[in-house]
């Protein structure tokens, strides 16, 4: 079996360059857009903070995760833009690169590069916004802690928790990528809807589990009482369930994306 038909470094470089050169304006526009949105979000968050309390880590972390989630939805959910209509799809599928190279290009640009870019940009933007805010609001001095790059994850002291969060983020990112390859029209909307259905399914399994295993505690139909069980001192069964689900999900969303792209017909 020749690996050349799946991956050739030179062909991949050519294709990667092609993608960057073709979409350079879109990517730059997106970067500038994120920078503006982050500035506004940070400014708003700082403005809403009481000067007596100051801006703390517990304010910084949710701000990071909320903006990261929203920007990820746009950045990753709009992957494979050429698959939205027949004309563009034909052109895209016939470009002389392997399916894996096309998939890898989107994965690298939309997930790896975007995540790294956002992570650094958020940190820089927050520092920049704070400086601007403090120069404008110099009369009402707001104390802002000095946050570093690791601050968003600094509360996750246990390796298992950190891995669970990282795998969770990766799973959601790969789910968005899969949705973009799977759905043709209104892919972003359909992906979010599908994600909502998955969350609903998860909730339903918890409800069913509660009724099955803890019928005496579960009085109302939609109440979840399953989280009462502890596997060990610091590990609930639901935590364990979530860890397994997010880890496993991240492993199969990527292959599904690849095979969906491979089987695409116009």
């Amino acid at each position, binding site marked *: 079996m020749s690996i*050349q*038909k799946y991956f*050739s470094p030179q*062909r991949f470089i*050519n*294709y990667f*360059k*092609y993608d960057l*050169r*073709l979409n350079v304006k879109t990517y730059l526009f997106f970067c500038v857009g994120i920078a503006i949105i982050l500035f506004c979000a940070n400014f708003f968050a700082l403005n809403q903070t009481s000067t007596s309390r100051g801006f703390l880590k517990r304010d910084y972390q949710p701000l990071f995760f909320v903006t990261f989630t929203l920007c990820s939805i746009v950045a990753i959910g709009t992957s494979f833009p050429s698959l939205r209509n027949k*004309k*563009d799809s*034909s*052109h895209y*599928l*016939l*470009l*002389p*690169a*392997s*399916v894996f*190279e096309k998939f890898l290009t989107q994965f690298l640009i939309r997930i790896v590069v975007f995540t790294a870019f956002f992570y650094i940009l958020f940190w820089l933007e927050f520092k920049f916004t704070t400086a601007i805010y403090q120069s404008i609001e110099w009369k009402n001095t707001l104390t802002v802690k000095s946050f570093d790059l690791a601050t968003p994850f600094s509360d996750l002291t246990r390796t298992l928790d950190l891995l669970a969060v990282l795998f969770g983020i990766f799973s959601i990112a790969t789910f968005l990528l899969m949705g973009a390859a799977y759905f043709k029209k209104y892919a972003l909307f359909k992906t979010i809807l599908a994600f909502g259905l998955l969350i609903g399914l998860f909730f339903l399994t918890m409800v069913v589990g509660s009724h099955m295993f803890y019928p005496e505690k579960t009085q109302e139909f939609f109440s979840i009482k399953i989280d009462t069980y502890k596997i060990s001192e610091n590990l609930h069964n639901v935590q364990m369930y979530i860890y397994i689900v997010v880890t496993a999900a991240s492993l199969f969303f990527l292959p599904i994306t690849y095979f969906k792209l*491979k*089987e695409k*017909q*116009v």
Partner: protein
Amino acid sequence: MIETKNLTFNHKKQKTLFNNLTYMQDSGSITGLLGKNGAGKSTLLKLFAGLLHPKKGEILINGYTPAYRNPDFLSDIFLVSDEPYLPSLTINSYLNIYAPLYKNFDREKMSKIINEFELLGSQKLDSISHGQQKKFVIAFALSTNCKLLLLDEPTNGLDIPSKSIFRKVLISSVEEDQLVLISTHQVKDIETVIDRIVIIEDGNIVFEKDTHVVTEKLQFQKIESITEVSKIIYSEKCPGGYNAILPVENNEETEIDIELLFNAISNKTEIKL
């Protein structure tokens, strides 16, 4: 080059378009794929390009199965669709971005064809006319030097001078190891360039012959009255008489009238060659 064995295909929730279709074609020719609307010409080109997958049967192009979209296969095939996708780029930028993807791309050939078509490198592809876009894509397709060129209605949108340039450029650009498959219903536009005729009807290939074989055996003549000629194979009324297909007599060859031949075959006329 093209080996299609027992191909069966239907679009989703539609009746079978091709049923056990078998078709072989070697390189070194410009083949006209003719058929009525909905006969399956564009679908067949898409199947050859790997954009659609057969339900049954096998397609091999240069030894590759198109549905697998092997990159080596893709770098040696180019499909010019009726409505080509063109990004918002100038011709020069397009060439800089796309040409490196095709290993045999010939920039000299490209600039020569572009000049013939009177296009400029600084022109933006999304702001030129449909005909100019078509000319650009044809020029690009020919310059890739792909072994298989699939042209779907290439003359649609071209003005009269451009059609003639297209024919000239096509004949001069195609090499012996290439195969050009042109799907069209505007048969007059390609009459002088094709050297093989394939006619599809109801998902079957009903006629498949080299043009020289046709001209060796058939004559295409304009006659005043059909009563005065006895061996008419097929005729159609036209201003001033009839266009007729006759068997060749005295080795006298005439120019092929593909439209007449196509109409004869569509009207189930038996043509023995």
